[in-house]
């Protein structure tokens, strides 16, 4: 028997206080990781937890251990392997829409990913700055036209990355309602397996039709170029397009809204940024670290026995790397529970780590830098328009953030 076939399940945690994941956050500070998971960093950095179906997995919580696991290909990203930890039944159902490279290992992962690396490289994305800036200014113009309040999510934080990813992919922005709704279902921890399956099918069907239409009318978007490349079927292009579309929407949009809220909650930090706009680049890294919107961990499954932080993780056992606790690890980020826009936060793992690290991160950085800088510059009187206690946080979503953010200026 090879080690990869050995799938002996972990004993289910029997202690009454065994951690259940997704773990609930404390009512005090909605920006902090769940207290149970945060405690693990000091008490038992590699610890066991229970998933929704009663199965057990490991939580890896410290910065150095998270980097070890995510950097080691003996921890597989292949969601078809037994033992792979899913956060919900709906999460497992996402596989029904076709596997994307984020849930595959090399060499297949590298082959598919490399078809896209040129589109997201730093130089290419930096060249988009003027266009992204123009879109940001237009959205603010429209939002403030004759009004003194708005929902920052629907009027700014969501449309900005949505417009940009549609442009990059060659997807008509007029259809944004259609794919934003399906994207929300895919990422909701409350969605049933059935709902996820339907949303998947619809989204993939939509993108397959789109890919087919590019054969007749090619443009310079990514979908069109993948069609012209001729290496992937329309279904495969649609699956890849779905990944980019969902990732492009949900991540930057939530980082923008949550960052705005975090700055409004830390007026000294906001004042610091206003006084010194050159701090914006570093501040965005710090916001990525502090907020870490992939808040339930990055899943892997061991294919061999590997020692991590003094514990042996056996072949076939699931692992969740809680990057939000890694990003608060005091050994790497002293005073890390506080937001400090002047901190050197570049070693954060908010984009993950290892060969699966976020492909779109240069684009996310440009969008976030422009979004934060533009909001601060154009809306000097920006404030929250409801009590902080009434803000609806996305505890129920795979990507953390806020469902809406009523603001005034």
């Amino acid at each position, binding site marked *: 028997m090879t080690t990869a076939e050995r799938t002996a399940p972990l004993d289910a945690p029997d202690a009454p206080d065994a951690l259940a994941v997704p773990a609930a956050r404390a009512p005090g500070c909605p920006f902090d990781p769940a207290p149970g998971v945060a405690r693990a960093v000091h008490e038992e950095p590699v610890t066991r937890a229970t998933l929704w179906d009663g199965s057990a997995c490991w939580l890896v919580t410290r910065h150095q251990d998270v980097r070890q696991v995510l*950097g080691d290909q003996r921890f597989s990203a292949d969601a078809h392997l037994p033992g792979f930890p899913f956060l919900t039944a709906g999460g497992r159902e996402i596989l029904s829409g076709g596997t994307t490279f984020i849930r595959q290992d090399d060499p297949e992962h590298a082959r598919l*990913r490399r078809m896209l690396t040129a589109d*997201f*490289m730093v130089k290419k994305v930096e060249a988009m700055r003027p266009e992204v800036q123009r879109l940001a200014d237009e959205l603010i113009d429209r939002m403030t036209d004759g009004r003194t309040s708005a929902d920052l999510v629907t009027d700014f934080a969501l449309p900005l990355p949505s417009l940009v990813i549609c442009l990059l992919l060659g997807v008509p922005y007029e259809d944004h309602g259609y794919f934003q709704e399906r994207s929300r279902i895919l990422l909701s921890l409350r969605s049933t397996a059935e709902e996820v399956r339907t949303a998947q099918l619809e989204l993939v069907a939509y993108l397959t039709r789109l890919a087919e239409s590019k054969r007749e009318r090619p443009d310079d978007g990514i979908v069109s170029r993948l069609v012209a490349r001729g290496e992937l079927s329309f279904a495969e292009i649609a699956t890849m397009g779905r990944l980019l579309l969902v990732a492009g929407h949900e991540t930057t949009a939530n980082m923008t809204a949550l960052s705005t809220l975090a700055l409004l909650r830390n007026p000294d930090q906001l004042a610091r940024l206003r006084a010194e706009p050159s701090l914006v680049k570093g501040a965005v890294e710090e916001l990525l670290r502090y907020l870490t919107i992939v808040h339930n961990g990055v899943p892997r499954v061991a294919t061999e026995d590997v020692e991590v932080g003094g514990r042996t993780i056996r072949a076939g056992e699931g692992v969740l790397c809680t990057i939000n606790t890694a990003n608060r690890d005091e050994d790497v980020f002293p005073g890390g529970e506080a937001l400090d826009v002047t901190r050197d936060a*570049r070693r954060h793992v908010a*984009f993950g780590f290892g*060969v699966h*690290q976020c492909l779109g*991160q*240069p684009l996310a950085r440009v969008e976030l830098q422009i979004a934060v800088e533009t909001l601060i510059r154009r809306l000097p009187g920006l404030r929250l328009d409801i009590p902080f206690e009434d803000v609806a946080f996305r505890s129920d979503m795979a990507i953390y953030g806020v469902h809406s953010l009523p603001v005034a200026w």
Partner: protein
Amino acid sequence: MRIHADQEKCCGAGSCVLAAPDVFDQREEDGIVVVLDAEPPAALHDAVREAAAICPAAAISVSD
């Protein structure tokens, strides 16, 4: 200081370019790392070490 970047390992996420733009770049066709200056001046050594530390694919190695 001598830098080696492994193009096989590189996953093209560009962190090195942001950390040390005078030393690293990405290939036009596929976004894979290229080293612009394999023996950079001392003033850039810290930035290069930072680039090696944040490279997610452990593709950058540095020898003194």
